[in-house]
């Protein structure tokens, strides 16, 4: 093992930690340009979407409850089936 190997290992660990810290400190993923695009889209459609589903097929309430979207399973096929809806079981 060369004499520099421990130093190189330390430098690698510090570099990984610093890079990770920079990503976390800058809240990577939420750049100002993206925020502008986000606001522009939401203004265009007057506010759409609140949950993880990307369509209404699984649960309209989980997609966006504002348009009167009740849970798809709330009344059919079994009354109070929303208790078992995988999109928000237990809520």
């Amino acid at each position, binding site marked *: 093992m060369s004499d520099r190997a421990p130093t190189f290992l330390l430098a690698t660990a510090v570099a990984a930690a610093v890079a990770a810290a920079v990503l976390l400190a800058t809240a990577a*993923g939420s750049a100002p340009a993206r925020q502008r695009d986000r606001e522009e889209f*939401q203004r*265009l459609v007057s506010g759409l979407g609140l*949950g993880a589903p990307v369509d209404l097929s699984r649960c309209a309430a989980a997609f966006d409850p504002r348009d009167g979207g009740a849970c798809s399973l709330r009344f059919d096929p079994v009354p109070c089936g929303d208790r078992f809806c995988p999109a928000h079981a237990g809520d």
Partner: protein
Amino acid sequence: MRRFAAIARTGLVAVLLHPLRSGATVLCLVAVLVPYVAATGVASGLADEARASIRSGADLYVSGSRFGRPAPLPLTAIEAVRSVPGVRDVFPRIVGEIGIGSGRWPAVVVGIARDRVPASTPCVEGRLFEGEGELVMGAELARKLEVRVGSRLPPFYRNRSGERVSTVVGIFRSDLPMWEANLLFCSLETASTIFDQEGLATSLLVTCEPGYTQAVETALRRLKPFDDGGPHGPVAPAVTSREDVQALLPRSLGHLEGIFQLHFVLAFAVGIPLLMGTAGLGLSGRRREAALLKATGWMTDEVLLQGMVESLVLAVLGAGTSVLLAYGWLDLLDAKGVAGIFLPGADPAPAFRVPFRLAPVPALLGFAVSLAIVSVGTLYSTWRAATAAPALALR
């Protein structure tokens, strides 16, 4: 201080002396931490998108109710709502679902009056709709249907007056909020035609004068059911305010985040014995190393310090690499392979940008747990050997 640095350096040497063991420990940490950091990042990103949706929406949403279930509202209800004191603006919106294409892929149809949308927007490749039968399509849906700007869609709906060919005049950019993915954005008239529901809307969006939201909400809840003279009788109003929706947000997204965290508690629980084993718990080699150091004059606390530095380096490498890999996976690879797990209805390789925001707390928590587990694996064996007589430990 120099002595401390020299002992710490031996901790680095210890990592390098057993590359296989060190590598296995870091890999185990990465395997457990990357999904955890990524999942909590997606939950945070989703929460940001949802807050923007609430901010940009109306103050109040009036929908209809029949049998206590959602029902469309007649457009004649607009005047009744507008006449409530404190209401600044009211406009109807249609949000509905339809299957489209040979695969009957679910599309979210959103219809808004043309005068409510701007003339142009940077969000769309192409242009916004102007006339009837013109659609702006979401990126994911456009990919599934293999359509481009200008493509014509054969009739995908039933209408008593006949079906018409629709034109895709614009496609949403794929880096917008994920709810654009399966969108068919069109005029109110086009949406009415698609669902064959003339004169109806799924909700009215109400903007109130500053300070009047509460009063308007109360007044709207007291309105008589809307009756347009149709054969099915009146429709009772149901009102949802921005505050109601904001109150729902922590519950719904907290539920999602809770599911992720529960799975990763289980993953950590399974990973603990593995990590402790790879870090050295029970390994005879570690006992001999500690015994040799004691035999050459090292004190117990110096041996433990070496072990601590070794654990710290492994934990830092594991946690740091995990954050970088999670970022690369979510940003550069667009969460390929796992988008469908985080977001119901999304393809494993979605055509939209999966929302995420890497937050410090989950990463720090992951690092702390990793350090604790690796330290137990390293230090326990080291301490047992360091506190025993070297001759016994070397036997």
